[in-house]
């Protein structure tokens, strides 16, 4: 039910696209018809599949690195006013650094392997994780803190029993934003220097006028991003079952 409307929109757009591409108004190396893209998915299946796994590995590990770094940074900044003053401006500043400039540098330093890709994906992904986690930590109900104090909880116990679980939904929201940009980050990183991956396939296919293959790679990337997003939504439902119930409950009041 949830997917019916987006599916209708996609089908409608594809139909218009197909009709326009077949009308002969454009060459198919400029705009291939959707059916040609599907054909490319089948014909170049082995090639796309092999390269998909390369990019999927980069994105998966990159997001894990971003979650780890982002989560730890958020906790450190939350616990220490000094670190907040020292690091927060740098974190915001890091997002203004153009990836286009950084990516080739990382390739020069670390070569064509997976390391520069992880660096770039982590760089674009960790920021939403840090911000949403920090906001969630700051939004902890002061009454719950008071409760922990009257039960003589230590700072660590307050974190373990109240702050960490309260911040988990925020961290997962950040991760959901992160997966959407992680795929773009991976393609950028592969553009900057690589020998494999779907970004590399797109880079190679374009000058060869294999436009349908490039579109097929993009379709795979988009599907992968949607899959990751759904997995995180599922994780959210399993890890924070109380969050949904709580909002339902409070809006009913």
């Amino acid at each position, binding site marked *: 039910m949830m997917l019916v409307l987006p599916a209708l929109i996609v089908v409608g757009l594809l139909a218009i696209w197909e009709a326009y591409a077949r009308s002969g108004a454009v060459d198919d190396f400029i705009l291939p018809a959707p059916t040609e893209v599907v054909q490319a998915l089948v014909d170049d299946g082995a090639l796309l599949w092999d390269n998909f796994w390369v990019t999927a590995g980069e994105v998966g590990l990159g997001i894990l690195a971003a979650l780890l770094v982002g989560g730890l940074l958020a906790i450190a900044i939350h616990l220490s006013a000094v670190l907040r003053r020292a690091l927060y401006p740098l974190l915001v500043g890091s997002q203004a650094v153009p990836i286009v400039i950084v990516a080739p540098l990382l390739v020069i330093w670390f070569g064509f392997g997976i390391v520069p890709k992880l660096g770039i994906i982590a760089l674009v992904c960790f920021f939403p994780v840090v911000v949403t986690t920090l906001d969630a930590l700051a939004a902890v109900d002061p*009454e*719950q803190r*008071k*409760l922990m104090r009257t*039960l*003589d909880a230590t700072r660590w116990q307050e974190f373990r*029993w109240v702050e960490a679980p309260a911040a988990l939904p925020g961290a997962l929201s950040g991760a959901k934003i992160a997966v959407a940009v992680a795929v773009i980050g991976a393609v950028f990183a592969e553009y900057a220097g690589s020998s494999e991956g779907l970004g590399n396939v797109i880079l190679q296919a374009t000058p060869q006028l294999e436009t349908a293959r490039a579109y097929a790679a993009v379709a795979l990337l988009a599907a992968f991003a949607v899959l990751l997003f759904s997995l995180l939504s599922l994780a959210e439902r399993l890890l924070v079952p*109380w969050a949904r*119930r*709580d909002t339902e409950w409070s809006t009913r009041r």
Partner: protein
Amino acid sequence: MRTTMAPSPASVTRDPAGVLLKGVCFSYPAQRRRMAPVAAIDALSLTIEPGEFVAFVGPSGCGKTTLLELVCGLLAATGGQLESDDAVLMPQRDQLLPWLDALGNAALAQRIQGAGREQARASARPLMQQLGLGGFEHARPYELSGGMRQRVAFLRTLLSGKPVLCLDEPFGALDALTRAEMRDWLVTALVAQPRTTLLVTHDVEEACVLADRVVVLSPRPARVRAVLAVDAPRPRRATDPVVVALRERALEALAA
């Protein structure tokens, strides 16, 4: 034993003291510059014996919650002397943690005191049964009724093992029927687990039904208007003549 004395240095006192307030003052610092600090409690003096049940009634916003937070050491008095046995606060609204089940919430105080998960849960389990929460051990807080949530919160407070309980409007959010039920239940629970109890409420009848003494507070800053002793055996009904007469006197003192 915890002693706060302000502004002079803390004095040392010895056990079982109950709660002793001598000219206790508290003001909240000014919210903005050029605003005066807000006096919440003004020269409040009262002695509460160990094991006594004292109820505080007063107009809303008069500083009742502040008083409990002072006794529990969550705030430091800005003047006067306050001595109290180790006290625990049961905050307004239950404050159950939504990520723990009912048994986990009840066992929270013991987990914080260092007990292992299974050990803490095992010692809370029989009390859950006693308080009529059997079968709801694994229920999440949002699955419990208001009365059940209050009972879990009370159990959590009780299991902290502290000799003084500070209950802040524990039944404020409940409907009239559940309230009456919970009063009976609290009396039974305290017979089984005697503690020094400070109860804050805006419900005069509730205070008269439950407490050994009812302290009537003035509007902010809170001062003691009257201290009324309730000489009637428990359990009491709201319709008992003693309770009715006392309720009248308390209401008069409130209106004065």
